[in-house]
């Protein structure tokens, strides 16, 4: 299962003087769900366009199944795309849209019909074939777009912000469905989104893109628990990011106060950034708290309360708690050594991985 279906080697892309991607390297394994996650303008959609063949890289090579495909036009790549705006053909009905790719390939009529029905079944639109596109809702159009792509049995399916036009409830439902569909079909999905929740929920592997570079790649859990830098920590989930000093291995100072942690491999007294997730912080009594502060705000969000507390040094902490507190109260904040994640400034992903390996294996 670890066969690489696609690879980017030192791929760069620029439009005129505008550098969109710089030195992108990654390998895509067959049969996995990948997400390219980044803010708008980060270059993630450009990567997708390079894979689909709508654009050619300015430098570097793209390999598909071992072959360099830099100059292979889009219509001869074994890749299909689900577009952000669905791009369904308005002059064709649902079945004709889905059949488009097969017709182009000259598949027999009877087989087209069978495969179109099958694809519509897969996206739960059986019986909708004769409908006009204009008669379909946003969510249904989304499914038609997916059916139109998967009916061609591509090796890789690209999804460009595919769920962003749907309302929240439908989006969550489609996340589950997409994940199931990917497992059922066993083909590689490459999903582009700016929505970190979506990325965490669906992916086997996430690549975080910013400023034309891959910031970090890894499983959702790795990225969430061990973000490489400020950008990743801030972009994925909510976080408290505070400056600190790494006294020695497994000991970090925040606000001049020493805390045990589980990070190591840095220079003594190195300046670092410390990440603590809001849900890892607990409100407790002043006596039991490792930090002491005053509650500023409290928002009820259904699942939990979002609380902000400023400590004695006026640093504001975001805390997510299922227990409520009172605004203006003095409280203690407690957390465990495992909740602390230390990030070095300007560490590359390779160095980060190496450092993690060095001390995690040592234990």
């Amino acid at each position: 299962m670890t066969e690489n279906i696609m690879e980017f080697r030192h791929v760069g892309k620029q439009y005129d003087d505008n550098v969109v991607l710089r030195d992108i390297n990654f390998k895509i394994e067959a049969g996995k769900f990948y997400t390219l996650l980044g803010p708008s303008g980060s270059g993630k959609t450009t990567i997708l366009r390079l894979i689909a063949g709508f654009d050619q890289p300015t430098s570097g090579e793209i390999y598909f199944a071992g072959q360099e495909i830099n100059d292979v036009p889009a219509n001869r790549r074994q890749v299909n795309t689900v577009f952000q705006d669905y791009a369904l053909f308005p002059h064709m009905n649902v079945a004709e849209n889905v059949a488009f790719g097969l017709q182009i390939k000259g598949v027999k009529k009877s087989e087209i019909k069978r495969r179109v029905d099958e694809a519509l079944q897969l996206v739960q639109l059986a019986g909708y074939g004769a409908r006009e596109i204009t008669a379909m809702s946003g969510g249904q159009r989304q499914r038609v777009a997916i059916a139109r792509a998967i009916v061609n049995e591509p090796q890789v399916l690209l999804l460009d912000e595919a769920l962003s036009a749907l309302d929240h409830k439908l989006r969550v439902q489609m996340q589950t469905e997409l994940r199931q569909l990917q497992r059922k079909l066993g083909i590689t999905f490459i999903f582009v989104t700016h929505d970190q929740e979506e990325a965490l929920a669906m992916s086997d592997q996430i690549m975080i893109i910013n400023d034309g570079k891959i910031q970090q790649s890894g499983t959702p859990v790795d990225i969430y628990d061990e973000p490489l830098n400020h950008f990743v920590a801030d972009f994925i989930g909510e976080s408290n990011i505070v400056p600190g000093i790494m006294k020695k291995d497994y000991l970090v100072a925040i606000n001049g106060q020493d805390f045990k942690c589980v990070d190591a491999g840095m220079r003594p007294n190195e300046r670092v950034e410390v990440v603590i997730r809001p849900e890892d912080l607990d409100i407790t009594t002043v006596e039991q708290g490792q930090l002491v502060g005053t509650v500023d705000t409290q928002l009820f969000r259904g699942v939990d309360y979002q609380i902000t507390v400023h400590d004695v040094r006026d640093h504001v902490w975001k805390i997510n708690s299922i227990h409520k507190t009172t605004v203006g109260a003095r409280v203690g904040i407690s957390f465990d050594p495992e909740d602390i994640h230390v990030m070095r400034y300007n560490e590359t992903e390779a160095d980060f991985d190496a450092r993690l390996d060095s001390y995690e294996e040592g234990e």
Partner: protein
Amino acid sequence: MMRQKTLFIVPYLLWIVLFVLAPLILIFYQSLYNINGQFTLDNYTTYLTSGVYLKMTFNSVWYAFLITLVTLVISYPTAYVLNRLHNKQFWLLLVILPTWINLLLKTYAFIGLFSRTGSINQFLRFVGLGSHQLLFTDASFMFVAAYIEIPFMVLPIFNSLAEINPSLINASKDLGASQWQTFTKVIWPLSMPGVKAGIQAVFIPSLSLFMITRLIGGNRVITLGTAIEEHFLTTQNWGMGSTIGVVLIIAMFIVMFATGEAKQKGGHTR
């Protein structure tokens, strides 16, 4: 609110009644009277039985068809290329610009160009090809008519091409279609509304051309338009002129109906 809305509609209603409905009724009314002012259906019988008028009708339709076809063949690629240019609005303006010049002026300009002593013949003589009869030929008539109609064809096609979502073209390529397949299966069907509007804008006026037929075609091509002019201005047979007018109006309705928005049922399965 309601009263205001009804008030706003008054100018439009007046316009419609005075300049659309009334003339239509008048033409129809006139067509039922013969040259001596007697109420009769003779004009219609004459029209249908005399070969002259039917031949004229056929001529009109045939030339209008040719003009439309030539215009379409030139305009579609033009509109297509214009759409891909960087300053497309500017280039489009250049195509539209000639329509701001008076039609008669343009026609006279062509007489100057095409005549025996005109610029084109001067050039032909200069390169040693001798002078030729250009004016008063079918070819020159077609050329000038097409020249005049092209902007009216380019504009709607350009607009309908511009409206096509570029991601549809990417989607087509993504699904394996070549450039040509993308054109025949996506771009062409989606630009049909523009093509139809263009055909309406060109075919219908071409049916009743009369000035160009006279000035450039030298009255060799007699169309219904020319016949109407003759009846009203020369023979003073308003009844017969009106009858031909009614025929033209019917022809226009047929064209409108044929090219109208008949519920877009596209998508051809092979």
